[in-house]
Every structure is written in C-alpha cells, then in structure tokens.
C-alpha cells in the first residue's frame, strides 16, 4: 500500500489531473492518460532526445521539452495554449523553410508528420522567414532504400532506431549548425548493412519523406492517407516494438 502511494503522484495538464508513475517523463505520463502533446522527434519506443522542441510545454511558468522533462509532484502544466501553439507553429515553419519541402511530389505526403503537424497547427499564411532552398544530396544507391536529405528534419529517429533496436549504427549526425546532416556508416547507403527489415527503415520511423522504401511510394490513394481526414494525434502516433534485450537501461521507465 505505502509502496503504491510513493510510486504515484499527480500533475495538472491544461487543468486536467494526471496520475504519474514515478520515473515517467511528462510525455509518458500524458501519453498514458490519453493527452496528446504535439511532437516530431519523440517516438514511443525510442530514447527521447528533446531536439525538435515541438513538445515544449509550460511547466510552472518555464517552457521545457515534455519528452525529456521528468514529471514531478504538483507540476502545473500548459500544453494546448495559444502561446505554446504559436511557438510550435514557428518551429514547424522554420523546418519547412530550412529544407526543400515540395509536398506535391513527395511520396510521404499524406502520412508525413511534419506536414500533419503544420495542418494541425493551421499553417496557411506566409511566414517571415526566407526559403533557404539548400542543395542536399540524394542517395539512391541502395537497391531497396533511397535517402532524400532535402526533406530531413534531423529528428534523429533513424539514428536511435538503428543504434538501439537494430544495433547497426547505420545513421548518425555529421557536421554542425546549419550544415548538420544525417550521414550513413559508409560512403553510400548501398555499402552499409541497412535493409528493409530494419526498424530504422520501417515506414513511419522517418517522420518525413527522407528515408524512402523503394517501390512502395504512392500506394495509398489521395483522400485515404493517414492524415487526409484526421489530424495527427495519439492514436496514429508511431510506436516501435523494442526487443527487451535491446532496451538501454536509461529508457527502462516502467514502474517496478
């Protein structure tokens, strides 16, 4: 009895009381309670890395990433507030302007989480940022997989899936600042041991149209794609099945 009391506590999220199991992040506690916090780089089953900042919430007056911030007793949290959604809109707009996002010709269109987040946030009007229109390489060397870096948002989901689930370390960041890119563990993808069976290559691991499984594009008609009719939310979030032996100790978050 006393153990149960010590291992759970409550927080307030947008006025709703959420019960937290000790050790959960704010994101995990809200996911379990059915409250959606918008996110791009976080993905159930992968170590949270807190880099996209879309999941930022207001915790007792400070804005912090929900995926990496541990829940603590008595926190008062704002999630779907006009201010936070304005920040999220800015972040998503910057991602669109930093890469080359030609949705009309992208095979991820309709199931892309970046696009879906922009729809959810209602982005229609011009933003103050310039389109950077970078020139980034496309690597189509692998017989089954193509990489179009023009659409990469550097969320690192492929890196974590390849490292922690596939144990292959195919992907990693290279370069710094605006030159930061996703690199592969050889000169070209064809020379790595990446394969269609990898979690890193599974559809949905890459939230955008950067990692592409060849000959699978445009398989769902327009109008029936994941985000054609309903916004991105908890129910359609990607989840990874992690074999137990592959879970690094620091993401073991289930309460004892």
């Amino acid at each position: 009895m006393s153990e149960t009391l010590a291992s759970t506590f409550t927080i307030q999220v947008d006025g709703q009381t959420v019960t937290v199991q000790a050790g959960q992040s704010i994101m995990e506690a809200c996911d379990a309670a059915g409250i959606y916090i918008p996110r791009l780089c976080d993905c159930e089953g992968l170590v949270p890395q807190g880099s996209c900042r879309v999941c930022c919430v207001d915790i007792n007056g400070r804005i912090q990433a929900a995926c990496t911030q541990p829940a603590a007793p008595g926190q008062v949290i704002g999630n779907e507030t006009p201010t936070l959604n304005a920040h999220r809109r800015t972040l998503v707009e910057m991602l669109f302007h930093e890469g080359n996002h030609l949705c009309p010709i992208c095979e991820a269109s309709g199931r892309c989480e970046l696009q879906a987040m922009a729809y959810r946030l209602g982005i229609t009007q011009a933003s103050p940022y310039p389109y950077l229109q970078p020139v980034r390489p496309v690597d189509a060397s692998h017989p089954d997989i193509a990489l179009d870096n023009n659409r990469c948002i550097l969320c690192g989901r492929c890196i974590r899936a390849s490292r922690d689930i596939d144990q292959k370390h195919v992907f990693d960041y290279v370069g710094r600042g605006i030159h930061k890119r996703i690199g592969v563990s050889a000169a070209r993808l064809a020379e790595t041991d990446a394969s269609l069976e990898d979690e890193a290559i599974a559809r949905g691991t890459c939230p955008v149209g950067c990692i592409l499984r060849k000959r699978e594009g445009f398989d769902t008609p327009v109008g029936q794609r994941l985000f054609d009719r309903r916004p991105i939310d908890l129910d359609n979030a990607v989840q990874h099945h992690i074999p137990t032996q592959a879970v690094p100790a620091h993401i073991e978050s289930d309460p004892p």
Partner: protein
Amino acid sequence: MKKKKRLATASLAGCFGCHMSLLDMDERLLEVLEHVEFDRSPLMDFKGFRQRCDIGLIEGGCCNEDNVHVLRQFRENCDVLVAIGQCAIMGGLPVMRNAIMHADDPLRECLEEAYNESPRVLNPGNHIPNDPALPLLLDKVYTCSEVVHIDFQIPGCPPSGDTLYQVLMALATGKKPEFSYGMIKYD
C-alpha cells in the same frame, strides 16, 4: 442591388491547375458570380485591368520577367491579393530549378540541361530558344511574397474547388476566411 466585388486572376509560373480547380467549383461558380464579377482573367480573356479590383488571385510564382510585371500590376490594382496554390506560395515544382542556383551560371546550366544535355532531348542544332517575344527567365524562381506583399494564401496543389469556393465566398462577402482541418493541404 448590392455592388459586386471585382475579381481578377492570373496564372504565372504555374500549370494552370489552380485555375482548373476554380472551375471545379462546378455550379457553385454561378453562386459566386452573384457576389463577384470578373475583371482581367484567363477565364475572361481581358488582357489588362479594366478598373480597380477588390480581389486578385495569383496562381504560380515568378520564373520570368513577365511574371514579375504581371504580379506588380496585380498588386497595384487589387485591394486584396491572394496567392493560390503551392507554386504561388513556395514556388512549387518550378522552384526545383533553384537547386542549381548555387552554380556559377545557374540559368545557363538550367537551359543546357533542358535543351541539350538531358538524354531524352532531341535537339539537333543545340538551339536554346531566344526569340525576343519570349520573356527573359529570372536567375531563379521567386515566390509571390518575395516579390510583392501578399495578403492571403490558399495552400494546395491545387486547392480543391471546395476550398476555393469557401475562401472566395468569405472574401466576397467581407468575412475572414477560415480553414477547417481538411481544407489545409500542401499537395
């Protein structure tokens, strides 16, 4: 009778798909025409503005000097200027040519690729079109809001007839257009 809003439209560096989507309003076009009357538009074939307009719709971004000229005329002659479609908003497919704008001579490279070097081109004289009647290409493709102030954008490739109908009716009746979830599309 209530005074109708005057509407002008133009297709710049686009595929005309956004204008086709205007026709996709089907019989609701008649309802729209109770609130607006056309000025300059490819749907009417007036080549120049006949009078000042309330609403201007622009399809496509700017890839040549004529596009810039027309866009500026629209800005001067329209109270509310609306960019419709991804080409007008972010450059769309034509903007793919900006991937070579970092080359030393990007325009030359673009033309060489289009008319000479592509394996699928048959052009025995290696002739690159340069008739004086052709507007000069710009160094790269510009979005509408990079050239003039744009008051409102309707995303999509093209925006659906439904979306265009709802936004146009809101503008024509002096309301602020709202986008429900399914109306926002980038493809």
